[in-house]
C-alpha cells in the first residue's frame, strides 16, 4: 500500500492556504484586494508572499491600480501544482480509514 501524500508545509497554515486558493483562482490579483480578502495587515501579507515567492509558488510585479502604484500577485504553474497536490493530500487524509484497535 502506498503511503499517503504529505501536505505541503508552506501552504498548510490557514492564511497561506486561503491566499494560495485566491491567487490560483485568478490570473493575477492586486495586493490591496488580496489583503482585504484575507483581512490581514500589509506587513503580514508581505511576509506570506515573501515565503511563497521564495518557494516559487507566487510571483509579484509592480503595476498600477486606480491610478496608484501597487503590486500584482500571480501564481505560476509551480504554485498551482503545489496547491493541487496539497488539496489532494488533504482529501487523501480524510479518506483514510483509521486502523482498527
Amino acid at each position, binding site marked *: 500500500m502506498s503511503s499517503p501524500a504529505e501536505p505541503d508545509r508552506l501552504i498548510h497554515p490557514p492564511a497561506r492556504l486561503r491566499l494560495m486558493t485566491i491567487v490560483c483562482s485568478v490570473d493575477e490579483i492586486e495586493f490591496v484586494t488580496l489583503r482585504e480578502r484575507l483581512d490581514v495587515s500589509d506587513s503580514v501579507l508581505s511576509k506570506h508572499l515573501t515565503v511563497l515567492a521564495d518557494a516559487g509558488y507566487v510571483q509579484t510585479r509592480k503595476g498600477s491600480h486606480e491610478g496608484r502604484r501597487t503590486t500584482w500577485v500571480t501564481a505560476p504553474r509551480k504554485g498551482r501544482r503545489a496547491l493541487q497536490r496539497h488539496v489532494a493530500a488533504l482529501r487523501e487524509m*480524510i479518506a483514510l480509514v483509521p486502523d482498527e484497535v
Partner: protein
Amino acid sequence: MESNEQVEAREALEAVALERAETGRRYVVPSGYDEWLGLAVALLVFGIALSNTVDGWRGTLAIVGGALVAAAIMGAQVARFKRLNGMWVSGLIAGKTRAVTAVAFLAEAVGIVAAVVAARADLLWLALAISLATGVVFAWVSRAWSRRYVAELGA
C-alpha cells in the same frame, strides 16, 4: 471517529471551498464588457477580410488598423475589469472554462476564413455581415465563459 489531523484537513478543505466561492461571488463583469469585446473581434475580422481586397499600403493599413483598434478596445476593457475587480482572469486560466475559450477561438477562426472568402469574392457586405456575426458569437461566448467560471468556483 476522525483523528485531529483529519478534522484539520476537513476544515482546510472547507476553507478552500469557501474561498473559491467567495471569489465567484465577487466576480463582476463591467457593463457592456462582452459587447465591447465582440465589437473588437468584429473589427479585427473585418480588417483582415478587407486587407484581402486591396493591394499595397491600403491592405496593410486595413489589417494593422483593425488590429490596433481591436487591441485598444480590448485593452480598455481589461483595464475596466481590473479596476472593478482588483484582479484579472483571462480565458486561458486552467479549468473547465478552457472548453469555452476553445469555442471562442474556433468561432473567430471560422469567422476570419469565411469573411476572407467573402471579401475575395467581392462580397464586402457579406464579409461585413460575417464579421459582425463573429463578434456577436464572441460576445455570447464571453458571457457564457463568465457564467461557467463562476459556477466552477462554486462547485
